C-alpha cells in the first residue's frame, strides 16, 4: 500500500458532515486547574488555564495559535485530544459532539498530536518502526508495519536504514519526522502540532515545515499549529488565533492580521518580532513584564494591566469577541472596536 497514490491517508475516518461542515468546532471550552495545598490537599485556588475559548477549524484549513508562555495554548491542545479532561464546553468533530455521538476513542482516530520534545515523545525502548506502528496496531488498522514503512519513506526516512533503529540513534530533525509519521499512522484528519518545530534548529525547522506543508496538501489534512514564532505560523497557517491568559483575544485570516492587528496585545506581539525591513522598524515599545497571575486574572479585560489604551471601562467590563466591520472573518475582543463599549477612543481608526 503506497500512501503517495492516495489523496487521503488510507483508512482515514470517513467524512460525515460534508465539505461545508467545519471539521472542529470548539464552544466555550473551559479548564481550571486546582492549586492544592494545606494539610488535606484541598483546592486552595483555581488556575484559569483555558477560560471560555471558542473557535472553529474548517476542513483542510491550518489554524495557527499564538500567545505567550502560559496563555493556555498547550492546554487547549491537550483538551482537544482528550489528554486533559475539559471542565466545560463542547468539542464538535465533523458535526459530532464529543461525549454524545463521538467517543473519545473515535475522536482519537480523527485527531492526532505532535509534541515539542521530539525525544521525550518517543519510547526509548521501542524501535522507530514499532513506535510508528503502535497506534495503527492499537486502532486495529491492517498491516501496521507496512503502513509504518510507507510513512517512513514519505517523511524522508529510508525504512531499510531506520526501521530497526532506536530514537537515541537518530538526529532531532529525524526524530521529529518520526513523530509526524507516528501521528499520521492512525490516518487522522486533524493534526495538532504543539510547538512541533520550536526545538529544531533553523535549517531543520525549514525542512520539517516544508514536509508539513506537503503532507497537508497530499493527504488533505487539517492542522492546528501552535507556536510562539509568528513567522513560522504565518508560513503554515491560513488563519491565526491569538490567546492571552486563557482567552481568545483575536482571530482572523493571516493576511488580515498581518496587515492590521486589531487587538493591542496582538500588536505588541508583532512589534516584539524582529523586523528585517529598515523601513519598518520597531517603534512602539514591546510589552514588558510577565502576564498577570492566571489564578487571579484581572477583572474586566484581562489585558488592561499591560495595555497602552486601557481606560476605566476596560477595568470593569470584559470585552466580547466581535467581528470587525471592515474585514469579515477578523474578530477581536477589545473595547476599542466596539463603539457601544463606552471607551473614549472607541471606533477611532488608526489608534488601535
Amino acid at each position, binding site marked *: 500500500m503506497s500512501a503517495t497514490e492516495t489523496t487521503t491517508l488510507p483508512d482515514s475516518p470517513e467524512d460525515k458532515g460534508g465539505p461545508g461542515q467545519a471539521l472542529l468546532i470548539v464552544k466555550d471550552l473551559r479548564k481550571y486547574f486546582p492549586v492544592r495545598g494545606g494539610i488535606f490537599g484541598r483546592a486552595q485556588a483555581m488556575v484559569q488555564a483555558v477560560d471560555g475559548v471558542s473557535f472553529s477549524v474548517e476542513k483542510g484549513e491550518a489554524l495557527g495559535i499564538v500567545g505567550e508562555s502560559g496563555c493556555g495554548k498547550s492546554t487547549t491542545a*491537550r483538551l482537544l*485530544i*482528550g*489528554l486533559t479532561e475539559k471542565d466545560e464546553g463542547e468539542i464538535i468533530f465533523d458535526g459530532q459532539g464529543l461525549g454524545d455521538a463521538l467517543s*473519545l*476513542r473515535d475522536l*482519537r*482516530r480523527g*485527531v*492526532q*498530536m505532535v*509534541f*515539542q*520534545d521530539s525525544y*521525550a*515523545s*518517543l*519510547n*526509548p*525502548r*521501542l*524501535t522507530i*518502526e*514499532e*513506535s510508528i506502528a*503502535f*497506534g495503527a496496531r*492499537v*486502532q486495529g488498522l491492517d498491516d501496521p*508495519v507496512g503502513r509504518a*514503512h510507507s510513512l517512513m519513506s514519505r517523511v524522508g526516512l529510508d*525504512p*531499510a*536504514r531506520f*526501521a*530497526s*533503529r*532506536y530514537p*537515541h*540513534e537518530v538526529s532531532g530533525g529525524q526524530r521529529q519526522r518520526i*513523530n509526524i509519521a*507516528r*501521528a499520521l499512522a*492512525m490516518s487522522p484528519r486533524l493534526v495538532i502540532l504543539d510547538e512541533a518545530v520550536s526545538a529544531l534548529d533553523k535549517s531543520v525547522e525549514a525542512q520539517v515545515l516544508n514536509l508539513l506543508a506537503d503532507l497537508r496538501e497530499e493527504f488533505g489534512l487539517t492542522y492546528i499549529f501552535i507556536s510562539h514564532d509568528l513567522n513560522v505560523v504565518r508560513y503554515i497557517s491560513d488563519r491565526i488565533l491569538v490567546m492571552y491568559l486563557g482567552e481568545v483575544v483575536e482571530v482572523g485570516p493571516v493576511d488580515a492580521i498581518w496587515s492590521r492587528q486589531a487587538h493591542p496585545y496582538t500588536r505588541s506581539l508583532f512589534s516584539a518580532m524582529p523586523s528585517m525591513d529598515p523601513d519598518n522598524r520597531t517603534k512602539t515599545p514591546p510589552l514588558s513584564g510577565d502576564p498577570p497571575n492566571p489564578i487571579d486574572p484581572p477583572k474586566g479585560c484581562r489585558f488592561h494591566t499591560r495595555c497602552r489604551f486601557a481606560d476605566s471601562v476596560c477595568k470593569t467590563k470584559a470585552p466580547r469577541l466581535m467581528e470587525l466591520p471592515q474585514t469579515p472573518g477578523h474578530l477581536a475582543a477589545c473595547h476599542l472596536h466596539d463603539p457601544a463599549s463606552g471607551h473614549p477612543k472607541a471606533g477611532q481608526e488608526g489608534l488601535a
Partner: protein
Amino acid sequence: MALVETSEAAGPASAQSGYWSGVARRLVRDPVTMICLGIIVALILSAVFAPWLGLADPYKGSMIARLKPLGTEGHLLGTDEQGRDMLARLIYGGRLTLFIGLMPVVLAFFVGSVLGIVAGYAGGITNTVIMRTVDVFFAFPSVLLAIAISGALGAGIVNSLVSLTIVFIPPITRVAEAVTSGVRALDYIDAARASGANALTVIRVHVIGNVLSPIFVYATSLTSVCMILAAGLSFLGIGVRPPEPEWGLMLNTLRSAIYVNPWLSALPGLMIFVTSLCLNLLSDGVRSAMNVRD
C-alpha cells in the same frame, strides 16, 4: 546494533532482546561480577544437587564425634555440637537459606512492581491509597517488622517467607512508584494515550520496559539484606526450626561452642557473609551493565 537491515515484522520483543544482549555483553566483561555470579551459581547448584553429592547424612549425629575441628578424617569441615557433619549441613543448609533468602524478594518484586506501577500510572486517589498504606509499613524498621510478623504468625518456613515478603513489598513499591511517575509524565505516554490505547496496553508496551530495570536492580540489592534477615529470624528461633539445617539457626546453636572451636562456629556466618557480599556486588554489576546511556 540497530544497523541491521530488516523488513519483516518485528514485535516489541526484538527491542527487548537487543537491549538484553547488550546488558549480557557488558556483564561478561566485568570480572568481579562474573566471579560473584560464579560463586552464587555454585552455591545454588550445590544446594539443589546436595543429595547426589555423596555427602554424609546432615541429620545423623554421633555423641562421640562432637565438635571435631576442621580437617578431621571423614569430616572435612568438622562436626557440630551434636556430631553432625558440618560440610553436609552447610550445603544442605544452603537449600533453605537461599530459598527463604531469595524467594521473598522475588515475590515482593512482583507484588511491589504491580502496586507501584499501578499507583504511579493511575495517580490521584489510587496513588494516595496505595502509597499511604505502604507508608504505614515504612514506619517500622525492617528487622523489627520481620520479627513482629513472624512472631505473630509463629515459627516455620512458610511464615518466614510471608513475613519477609511483607517486609520487602513497601520499599519495592516505593521505587516502582517513583520510576513510574517519572515515565508517566513523558510525552510518549501522552502520545500512546492519544493514539487510543487503553491503560493496560500503554503500561504493557510503554511503561514496563522503561521501569522494570531500575526496579529489578533495586530488588537484587535487597536479596543480601533478605538473606541476613532470614538467617536472623532463624537465629532468634522464629524462622526455621531444628533439626533443619539452616545457616542462621546453625550460627545460633554453635554460638555456645565458640570458646571450644571458634573456626567451626564461624563457618555458617562465613557462608552468610560470602553469599550476601556476592549478591551485593552482583547487583552493583547488573546496575552498571543496565545503564545504557544516562
